[in-house]
């Protein structure tokens, strides 16, 4: 009561206007671009030229468009699973680790079958299934600790990211290293049977992109029209109402972690099979973390996530182009992604709350 400063208070809006709800992500992107322009100015470059390199040129170039789709695919696939967790107030921060472990063990099938010439049809499906299963089991570690011992899932899932990365690092430097690889820490290149075919003959995008699109549709139906999706929605909004509806919180926690880990692991297997075609010390430029931004930017809805994944992929492609063409540091892309997330969260808060400033009586 003695504070003499202005006080800001957030007051919940009774019913956020529909236009505002739809417009908020757009405003957030515009605001983030403004901040981005300031950062580019501070680096002594022209924002207009940078934006043209960042956004306009990739969208005008068919090759870049295919690149965007390939980059967006893992982001969207991971974010679909994360959105389920986040809707139920479960904080899986370790999708990066689940992605890496899925890619590692899925890719392990390709390493193990290297050189096989007969009956290879099962290799691709096995890689994808092992990848998904590995990611699911890996995500179940924080989930089981949470429901049995009450351990924070945020910390455990995050720390397991580093375990997964070091595990992959050890394998490619040690037992799985390509004997004919001139001592580079990589496995042998995958055989054709372990590589995802293009989505259509001669196409520039691999079949995993199609799988992602299919998953977006499936997730849309699951969330809107199944009991499971209904349980997820209520649990986040009102846990006591979820108990009244008879949904078991612990079972749901395990199921959601397994699902989101499974999707991240599948994305990892798709990435090594469809894009990298071998295992190397790093198989992700941070997809698992960027997917957190994608999930929130997409308002935790499957179709929103599809759009948000494409936007974020654009910043990756544009960032590479800007580095080459304008010598802008790649860190600028990461900084921009952070600013974008902040703007999205702020826009989200302001859609649902109005700010009032109270001046204490003199």
């Amino acid at each position, binding site marked *: *009561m003695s504070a003499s400063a202005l006080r800001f208070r957030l007051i919940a809006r*009774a*019913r956020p206007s529909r236009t505002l709800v739809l417009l908020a992500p757009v405003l957030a992107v515009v605001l983030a671009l403004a901040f981005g322009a300031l950062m580019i100015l501070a680096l002594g470059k022209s924002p207009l030229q940078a934006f043209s390199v960042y956004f306009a040129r990739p969208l005008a170039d068919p090759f870049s468009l295919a690149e965007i789709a390939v980059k967006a695919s893992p982001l969207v696939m991971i974010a679909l699973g994360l959105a389920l967790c986040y809707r139920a107030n479960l904080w899986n921060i370790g999708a990066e680790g689940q992605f890496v472990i899925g890619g590692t063990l899925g890719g392990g099938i390709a390493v193990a079958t290297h050189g096989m010439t007969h009956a290879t049809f099962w290799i691709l499906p096995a890689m994808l299934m092992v990848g998904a299963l590995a990611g699911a089991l890996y995500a179940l570690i924080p989930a089981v600790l949470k429901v049995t011992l009450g351990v924070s899932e945020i910390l455990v899932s995050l720390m397991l990211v580093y375990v997964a990365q070091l595990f992959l690092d050890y394998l490619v430097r040690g037992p799985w290293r390509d004997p004919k690889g001139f001592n580079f820490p990589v496995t042998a290149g995958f055989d054709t049977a372990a590589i995802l075919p293009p989505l259509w003959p001669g196409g520039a995008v691999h079949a995993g992109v199609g799988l992602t699109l299919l998953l977006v549709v499936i997730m849309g*139906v699951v969330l*809107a*029209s*199944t*009991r499971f999706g*209904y349980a997820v*929605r*209520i649990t986040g*909004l*009102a846990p*006591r*109402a979820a*108990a*009244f*509806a*008879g949904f*078991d919180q612990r079972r749901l926690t395990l199921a959601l972690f397994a699902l989101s880990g499974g999707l991240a692991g599948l994305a990892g297997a798709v990435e090594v099979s469809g894009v990298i075609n071998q295992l190397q010390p790093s198989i992700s430029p941070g997809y698992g973390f960027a997917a957190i931004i994608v999930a929130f930017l997409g308002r935790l809805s499957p179709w929103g996530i599809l759009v948000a994944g494409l936007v974020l992929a654009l910043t990756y492609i544009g960032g590479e182009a800007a580095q080459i063409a304008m010598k802008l540091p790649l860190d600028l892309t990461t900084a921009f992604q952070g600013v974008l997330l902040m703007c999205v969260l702020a826009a989200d808060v302001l859609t649902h709350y109005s700010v009032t400033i109270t001046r204490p*009586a003199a």
Partner: protein
Amino acid sequence: MSSAPPLVSLDHITRRFGALVANDDVSLALRPGEIHALLGENGAGKSTLVKILYGLIQPDSGTINLDGVARRIASPQEARDAGIGMVFQHFSLFDNLTVAENIALVLPAKAGLKRLEARILAIAERYGLALDPSRPIWSLSAGERQRVEIVRALIQEPRVLVLDEPTSVLTPQEAETLFATLNRLKAEGKALVYISHKLEEVRGLCDCATILRAGRVVATCDPKAYSAHALAELMMGRDIGAVRPPGGGAGGAVRLRLNRLNLASPDLHGISLKDISLEVHDGEVVGVAGIAGNGQSELFAALSGESSTAPDAIAIDGHNVGDSDINQRRGLDAAFVPEERNGHAAVGAMSLADNLLLSRHALPGLLRHGLIDSAALRARTVEVIASFDVRTSGPDAPARTLSGGNLQKFAVGRELARAPKLLIINQPTWGVDALAAAAIRQAIVDLAAKGAAVLVISQDLDELYEVSDRLCALAHGQLSALHAAAALDRSAIGLLMGGSGHATREVSHVG
């Protein structure tokens, strides 16, 4: 009504919240030696008015006059300095601090705790408020906690004391003690504001009544000169019919049997249920009386399956269900309505149709091939809305846009539309306007008349007498014996609510 000049008067107060006019040109004069009732439905503007008087809200227009001089009251501190005290409906006490420590918190820091204890005892004695200053709050009953709040207000020697629904948490005996205290304060020349919707109480206690409806003063009168029914009509602006009395069933088969139900509380100061046994028959309404915090929520959770118990502690229609989940119990034609509407019985952010699914998703009819049949869901929702006269824009309206009474009608209607054989309902009309309350009570009685067994847990004795065939009371987690409602008068049930007959804890300071 005395003609002494008012100590405090509120003149032509108007306060808007967005489009809602909470107080519209309201005037109120508080005279010394007078207990002034403020009557009105939920949402009539009573709380806004007293918050303006206590400096918590500023009026858009109008003035507050103290001894005839206009004065701005910018904060509760200024209100207290001006001699205005307030006893809130919801206690604002720290459980782990003692009585004296809680009172010291509102006083200037220099008052020593020892001296303060002496002052507390002096005030407590003067007004007949038995209190031990050194006891921690968590060990006190609701009535004792209220005494702490009153002493905390009185120690600042107010000339005006506002009490918001003070008897809602008291047994009839505790209420009588409170009335004696209030009459003593009145005799000393203090002006009291008494907010209540219990009309008989107001008629017995108050000298003057101001009745608010939809933010406006509809009458200022001597409540003793009107019948309770006439006052209710003034409050509501229309007549509310009485609930048709229960049929007096208890002839049917046993539908719900509790057999030595025990449930340990997970909370440090929570209430554990101890050895509760009870039978509810088809065709009867059994009422469970009791002051909030005596195990009602725990009992409801055990009955609904949100808390698990020994399998044979609870039987529905002969099936042991103590460790079954809520949907298995629903499968035995049981239905449940919890106390809290927002976040428990309903999800505010979801549409009414989605909320209908909350208690129906595990039952046949609303899912097809594993997918929610949204057409059927909307149709069932429209039926509930129509048959219970829920005022809403339709099945797609988010639950939070409904008023408390309408949302409660929806939560009750959702369960009754299934024609359950057993209904368990906790605080059926808590915070609900009188019309909705009457409709809900009627629905409870009608359900039993059709042969269902109903268990009503409620703090409201008027309500229990209106709907119940048999009554018992829950005190400190123990249930009293069942009595025919007609054979149990209010003072008898009051004693049961205070826990007499269990001898586990003394009934504190009655009389």
